[in-house]
Structure formats: structure tokens, C-alpha cells
């Protein structure tokens, strides 16, 4: 059996002898607003295009009320809500060593995003935010808290961060699971979550 060394040797023998330096990649974000208030609407529009939505907590409403109101007609009577954020208790605790297979009955998972991307409407998680990675796919609906201050302009900026270098798993979610594999008809919730809702919520600064 040929292994690493043979394959590498074949590559060395065959690779084109061209001078091809790695190009500098610009950030291409001069045209973006420079403040959060400017970026948020772009984020929300981009997210809507991808089938996600933004919900706002109304005066006097709690986070849980807001979530239940937003998803009202899509929930069973006693929804199982698993929360990975301190802002909400929910009725199912997520523990790091939970067997992922036990999470299949969760109706709503509530997570905090590390950051968001205005260009695409993406939100980013690592295993730290997810607690159990699979929850973000096995739950029926996802609710995401995002601090508007944590928006970057575009995907180039997203990749200039170093989250990926430390995390085992880093993922951008852009709207819910989707497919158009049957005659091009768009279906939400192909395998993963059926909906994704983002709520603006700054991280409470510890007092």
C-alpha cells in the first residue's frame, strides 16, 4: 500500500513549476456602515433572504414570552425548551456530556451566537456556545441571542477572527435547514431545524 510518503513524492515530482505567490486578500468592506446600528438592518435583511427571521422583545415582555409568541403556532402545548444561555432557564438542561441521541425531543434550543455576519445574516457558534453540538440540529426550532455589537461586516472579516483556531467545532448558521431537492421547491427543515429566529440581546455586563 502506498502511503503518505509516496503520495507526497508523486506531488513533488508532478507539481507545476510556476512562480505563484499567495495573493493578499482584501476585506472588501469599505461600503459597509461602520456602526452597529447601520449593520443590524443589513444583517436582518440578509437573514430573511435565507429564511431566518428577527424577533424583538416587546416592552414588558420576557425573553421566554417573546420566544413563545414568535413560535406560537408551531409549538406543541408543552414545548421542551433547552437553554444554553443564562438569560433563560427553559425546561431541559443541557450538559456537556449529554448523549446527543437524547436530544431528539427538544422543541426549541436557545443559544447565544459568538458573532454575526451582516453580509449573509449568519450567526456563529462553537462547541462552547452549543454545549452539545447536536442540539443545534436535532431541535425543531432554534432561537439565537446575538449582541448587535458582535456583528462583523462580511465573510472576509469573519475569517479574520481566530475563533476557529481554538475551537474544535465552529459553525455558521444562516437561516434554518433547507432543501430544494424535490423539483426545486424550497422546503425548510429538511433534516435540521425548521426555523431560526435571532433576537438582539447584548451580553449583560457583569455588575
Amino acid at each position, binding site marked *: 500500500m502506498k502511503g503518505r510518503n509516496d503520495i507526497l513524492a508523486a506531488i513533488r515530482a508532478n507539481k507545476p513549476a510556476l512562480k505563484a505567490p499567495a495573493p493578499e486578500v482584501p476585506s472588501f468592506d469599505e461600503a459597509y456602515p461602520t456602526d452597529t446600528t447601520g449593520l443590524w438592518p443589513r444583517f436582518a435583511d440578509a437573514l430573511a433572504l435565507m429564511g431566518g427571521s428577527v424577533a424583538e422583545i416587546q416592552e414588558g415582555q420576557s425573553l421566554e414570552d417573546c420566544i413563545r409568541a414568535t413560535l406560537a403556532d408551531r409549538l406543541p402545548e408543552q414545548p421542551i425548551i433547552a437553554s444554553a444561555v443564562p438569560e433563560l432557564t427553559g425546561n431541559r438542561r443541557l450538559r456537556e456530556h449529554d448523549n446527543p441521541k437524547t436530544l431528539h425531543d427538544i422543541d426549541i434550543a436557545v443559544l447565544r451566537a459568538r458573532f454575526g455576519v451582516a453580509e449573509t445574516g449568519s450567526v456563529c457558534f462553537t462547541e462552547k456556545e452549543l454545549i452539545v453540538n447536536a442540539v443545534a440540529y436535532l431541535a425543531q426550532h432554534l432561537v439565537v441571542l446575538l449582541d448587535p455589537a458582535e456583528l462583523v461586516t462580511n465573510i472576509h472579516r469573519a475569517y479574520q477572527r481566530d475563533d*476557529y483556531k481554538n475551537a*474544535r467545532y465552529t459553525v455558521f448558521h444562516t437561516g434554518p435547514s433547507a432543501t430544494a431537492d424535490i423539483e426545486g421547491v424550497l422546503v425548510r427543515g429538511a433534516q435540521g431545524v425548521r426555523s431560526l429566529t435571532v433576537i438582539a440581546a447584548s451580553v449583560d455586563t457583569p455588575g
Partner: protein
Amino acid sequence: MSTPDPTKTINSPEATRESAPRFTKAKDGKRVDHAAAAKQFLDSPIHAKSHDERVWAMRTKRDKQAHAIEEWEELRDLASQIKTHTLTHLDEYLEQFADNAAANGVRVHWAADAADHNRIVHEIFNDHDVKKVIKSKSMLMEECGFRHYMEGVGIEIVETDLGERIQQLDNEDPSHVVVPSVHKMRSDVAKVFAETLGSDPDNDDAHYLAGRQRDATRPLILEADAGMTGANFAVAETGGFIVCTNEGNADLSANVPNLHVASIGIEKLVPRMEDMGVFIRLLSRSALGSPITQYTSHFRAPRAGGEMHIVLVDNGRSKRLGQEKFWSSLKCIRCGACMNTCPVFRRSGGLSYGATYTGPLGLILDPSFDAHRYSNLPFASTLNGSCTNVCPVKINIHEQIFEWRQVLAEDGHIPWAKKSALAAAGKVLADPKRYRAAIRTAQSALKHLPDWAVYSQLNAWGQVRDMPDVPDGGSFHDWYRKNRLHKTEAADTATHDSGDDS
């Protein structure tokens, strides 16, 4: 822009009852006959028309995205340059990648070819007593015949991408790298699901069908012993890899079972995480005309308590790297844009190519796996060049198709009758006397002109179209002689002997 209402069906009011086209597979050692298979597809006109329109819609959406980004062409240039840089330093970046991955706690394996790949994965599965596997879509695994291999050794593989699952249940190959069942209509899917998943055969609503598949697949996901993914990109700097899906099925495959095996072609490397901005911005816009896939997943290390393996696969890639005219095909990021824009692909369907890779990409990759079997494919193109213009990594696809024709002709892979007819044509066309004789009369031209192009298939032109009318006043040549030549002084008649008024 409003969100489409997921509960509302947007299906066309009536599903077709036309049955799905079936393709005759080329036997071992035989050439794939694309033209004949294309005819089989076109003989189901409702399917063919729907396919053309839906695939064209992806191209249209791609244009909209591309034209909305000021730096689009610059991004394509950057993507191409990053890939050129990586491929010309591939040994270094692969080593860096493998070392980093190992340092991250990932087991790295190297497979020289498809058989190695399948055997390595089989061994991993045996070590863990794996019987049931969920996997996300991977063209590399298709290339390796992985699913068939695993079926042979009694390990159950469940595709989790909806389109790929449809194809698996229908026992058919994928027809497109991004949308594997795009050649099917919902009535076909209803039939497949009724037979395999027990869904209502009379309900061909796409939401209903997708829902049945979700319900049927979920328990299989929960029960699986291992998950497999491919990779769209592998990053040397971090030792991690990136998978892009719209369904989240790669994340399920990787995050539910404890064992994750990723098969990665050695050409998937990019040097740095920062480079990914360019590719992610291009990939889904080129593929489906959406700004990004719903899920962009970066795997760097096994999750706590889990195990991760990477199988790096060569399978002809290092050899292709040495082919001066064709190495740049290794830049491909499998976006499928070339298929979507290809007028031949849209009208013949992906299965007509009889190969893992279909459409323009297939025409330049498949012959490198088996020159004889796929020797007809580079001729299944009008060389219109649209593929080259949409390719996000700027592969000169149509030029490579043209080059492949030459390579196949030189290596004796085109039929003798065709080659000898062209050699004969070359002799006539190099000789003004014989040329003139051949088209002296319009009738004779009618016989000879198409003949030069038609070689052995005399009637191919006439199968689908009429020949041009015969001009009343003779050829341009005749006209020129009559109206100009005799008026031109000092016409050197000696050189005009081929045009005697006989």
C-alpha cells in the same frame, strides 16, 4: 424581501404522469454513448423541459448574486490565484495540514486510490464494530464507489442529503454535484418514496415528501454508529476542514455518532483561514445563487469523548497535477455552476454522462479516470465557453474540453471511421482543385459539406433539421468570377485553373 412561507406549497398545480427517463449503462470496456443517452432523456419531453428550466433558474440566480457584487471578478481571480499557489506548493501544505490535524487529536490516513480509501474506512469501522453509518454528500466517495463497497461488506450506509437519499433509494447515481436528483420530478420522488418509505403514492407535494423523508431518516441518524462527511475545503494552517450544506446533514452526521470519518481529496487544501472568505463568498453564490449555504461547518478536532479520522485521498490527483494542460482542473470546488450554465447538460440530464462527474466538469475529469470509456464525453460540448465564464476558480473548462479532443484523437481513442473521414476531408480541403470539384455544384456541396463534418453518420444533420436551399445563382465563387474577376486586370488565370467554367 419576504420569507417564503414554508407551510404553503408552491408546486406546480399538476404533477406530470410522464415516467422518469431511464438510461442504458455502458458495459464494462465500452464507450459511454452520451448522444444516445441524451436522446433517452429528451424522449421524456416533460422531464427534459422541466430539467432545463430548473437548472437554468439556478444559473439565473447565480447571475443575480454575481452581478450584485462589485468585486465579483476580482474574487474569482483571487480564488484562482490561491488555488494556483496551493497546488504549486501542495506537498508542503498537505504536510502542514496532516501534522496540524494529528496535533489536534485527529487520526490521519493516506489513500493512494479508491480501493485504499474504501479499505481504510472499512478497517476503521471494523475496529469500532460499526454496522450503521450516516453520511453527508461527498463526490469523492461517489468517485470511490464507496457505498457499493460498503453494501458488499454488510455495512449499512444512509445518505442524509435529501437529493442523495432519493438517488440511493432509487438505486441511481447522482446526476449533479450539488443537486443529485435534479433530473427527477416530484411525481418520480413520490413513486420512489411510496415504494421505499411507504408514503402515499398519490401525494406528490414536495413538503409532504420532504417531511416523510425527515421522519424516516431521523431514527436512522439517532441509531447510527458512525458518521461520514466529505469536505469542501481543508485548511493547512489549522488542520481543520470545512463542510458546506443546506440541510445541516453534515453536522448531524458528524455530531450525533461518536465516530466521525471525513474523506478529503488532496486538492481541497487552502493555506490559511483568511483565504476562506474568498471561497465561501463564491461557492454558494455560484452553485445555487444563494449568498451562503445554510450551514458552513468548520471541524478541527474531535469533540470531547469522540473520535475523528481524516482519509486523504489521491486517486489520480497527483498524476493530474503533472498534466500541463489539465492540472488546473484540480482547482475545482464542485460548485456545479458549469453544469447549470451548460446548454448540453440541461438538455441531456446528468445521467447521460454515465460517469461520476457530469456536465462540463465531467468532460474534463472523467477521461482522466478512463480515457476509452469516457472518450465520447469531450465531444458532448459545443465549446460555447459559458462554463469557463461562470467557474468561480476560473478553470478554462472549454479550452480543456478542446484539448481533451486532441489528446483522445492522438491516443487513438476516437473511432477509426471518424478519424479517417476527417483525414480525407483534410486532404480535400488542402487542395483547391479537389475542393472546387467537391462543391462545384450546390447539389454536390450539399452532399460533401455536411459529409466533412458528418463523417460516417450521413444523415445526422437531416435527423433534426433541413439542409439549406440551393442558391439560384451558384456559389460565391461563381458570382465573383462572373462579376469581378473578368473585370479585374491581370487576373492570373494560371492560378485559377481549379475554377474552370466547365
